[in-house]
């Protein structure tokens, strides 16, 4: 089990998905800093309020009240987070949606369901600055 010193932020309104990712990242991968938001209300304030600046932000797309695309725009609009890696984590992997994700400016996308066998290696690739489009 590798130790991950990076700080991760996960925005997800589905409780089960949150739990799964927490188990994978903390229990299976050994991530030390994982912050989770249950909705996108006052999203930017919450990010700013975090004790650490996140290195990787994982965004669910279908989140209320503001969706993943809008959250991404807000992140990109803030110069402090210009180099933050933002990955879409979504179960909506219809073609049109993937196209939207690519055009939207995400650093990558990972299709749900995430898998405990494959997810860690995807995160490793993301941390190596690789653009990961795991949407099959």
């Amino acid at each position, binding site marked *: 089990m590798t130790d991950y010193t990076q700080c991760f932020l996960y925005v997800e309104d589905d409780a089960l998905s949150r739990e*799964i990712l927490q188990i994978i990242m903390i*229990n299976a991968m050994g991530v030390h800093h994982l912050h989770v938001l249950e909705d996108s209300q006052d999203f930017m304030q919450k990010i700013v309020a975090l004790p650490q600046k996140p290195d990787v932000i994982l965004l669910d797309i279908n989140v209320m009240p503001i969706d993943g695309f809008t959250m991404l725009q807000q992140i990109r609009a803030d110069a402090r987070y210009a180099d933050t890696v933002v990955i879409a984590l979504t*179960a909506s992997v219809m073609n049109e*949606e993937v*196209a939207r994700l*690519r*055009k939207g400016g995400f650093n990558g996308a990972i299709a749900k*369901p995430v898998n*405990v066998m494959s997810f860690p290696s995807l995160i490793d690739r993301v941390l190596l600055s690789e653009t990961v489009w795991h949407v099959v």
Partner: protein
Amino acid sequence: MQSALEQNSLPKMVTPASTTVWSRIKRGWAWLTEAPATITDDEERYRYRLLAGVMISTIGVAIVIILMALSRNIRYITNTDMLGVMIGVLIAIGMFVVLRRTHRINIVAVGSILLALVVTAIPPYMPDSRNTGIYFTLLPVIFTGMFFRPRHLLIWIVALPIFLYGIPPVFAVFGITAHNAETRAAVEVIIAIMLVMLVFVNEVQGLARARNQRLIQANDALRLSEASLEQRVINRTKEVEVAHRFSEKLYRISAAMNRTTTAMDIIKAISDEIESHAFSTSLILLEPAVTGQVQMGRIAAASTPSGVMAFDVVLPLGNVPQSNQEMLVIPDMRLGQDPVLRAFYEQMGIMAVAVASIFVEERVIGILSYTATTAYDFSEEDLNILRVSTQVAGAAIERQWRYAEQVQIAAQMRAVDAMKSQFLASMSHELRTPLNAILNFTEFVALGMMGEVNDRQRDALGKATESGRHLLSLINDVLDITKIESGMMQLFVEPNIDLYTELDAAKVAGLTLKHNKPIAYIEDIEDIDPNLPNIVGDKRRIRQVLLNLVSNAVKFTDAGTITMSVKQRGDEILFAVSDTGPGIAKEDQAQIFEPFVQTEQGIQHAGGTGLGLPISTRLVEAHGGRLWLESIVGEGSTFYFTLPIRSETLVQQISA
């Protein structure tokens, strides 16, 4: 180029200036005798020329006689005769000068006759005369007679007896008698012959004149008929112009109606083309339910700038024309036959009306009318415009209705499509999310992350995970085929797809699937072109097709070999996935490409939806390629598919 031109051009025709004596004489003669430009009549010009010619020749002959007399070669010319000749020459010269100066042919002609008579009649009384001068001086008379007009002839007829018979008694008073009776007699005979000749010449001239007259008449008649023809052409042109203007008006009206969408616009289109300001145009659309009498005013519009007017009146529909050919025209309402109709229009202050009905699907849907506040005689052209306009208006209105229907239908279709699309997206999301949890938690447990697990439990959890994955692939397939069937499959086209990456992914998946089956997996080195170009397409979908074919091969082959070969063939890539499985019977081959159909073998081997091949086929086709199968039962199957390297259709769809 230059020389070619010169060769082709004809040598210049040069007429050398005529220098022969004869041509000089001709030119001189023409200069002397040619009539001036002020005389335009051909006959007059001819007379002028003749007269001048006679004068010149007379002078010439006289000069010759005088020269001969002077040289004493002609002994019989007496001095008296010489005097006569000289007088004749002077007369001729004088006449010629007068002719050249005044251009008065008639005076010169008559003058020359009279003077010639004098010269002819007097010499017989002169002593020592042999009358040679007479013969000479007669010449001009003879010729001038040829261009006499009848009235000149009259002068001649009156003057001649006076000279012939009047002079001797006058001379006798002075005791002078003709000394040469023979000469006198000869003169009389010559003069008599002359008279006959003159009559003859005059007749000939008369004949020519008559012919000329007829020619002139014919010419006049021709000119007249030309004029009438011209008039007819003008009239016809005018008719054509009227017709043309009419059709132009109609064209503009119908063109305007094609653009218009409101009754007001239709009215305006028609009014713009009507020249009269004596009446206005109005369109009334009727309520849809037309029975006996209808309320008018659902839409009613007048051509006045005040725009749409609503009427709360009842239109007596029985009086509205019931066919395209009919029109109701009342130039003066006071003479209107129908009291109901009369009352109807009079209450609106309308005194003249022309009404034509607008038909849509053979039903009167409205009327188009001209209305005037005074009695008015509508012109044929205006009525024609009205008649045709109703047809155009009917077509325009029908088209508007149809268009509105189409727009509505299209909007509904779009709404349905959007709903379907939304439903699919939700399905995809809603089905995957719980599955996400099922698969992950099962795996967490199986991996021992939730505490100790014994082998039996791990085995059971493994089966649960496997079933979960299968369910996930089923969901994916069903969503895919639904998208394809509803035409909502869109490719995510990228310009440079590295096929080796996709082939590796397929190979890895195949190896994972094969478990413990004794299958040799061969990537045919011979057959995988090491220089495959990158292609334009949807990477994810290409991988999906490869995975589908490889996993089918692994699934249906219990032992043997699976071979994958890829090569470039022209402007496309040919893929082949072969197995040494049971093969597919001919009769089943078509079926396996149908959605939701599985062959008996397919069912036996389970683990599939039967959607993989139909999906793959459509995905390949969406790329502009095709997918097919060759199989022999008992030997195995080979699935082939092609992908264009650079499909123009796909290039236009490049998303990223």
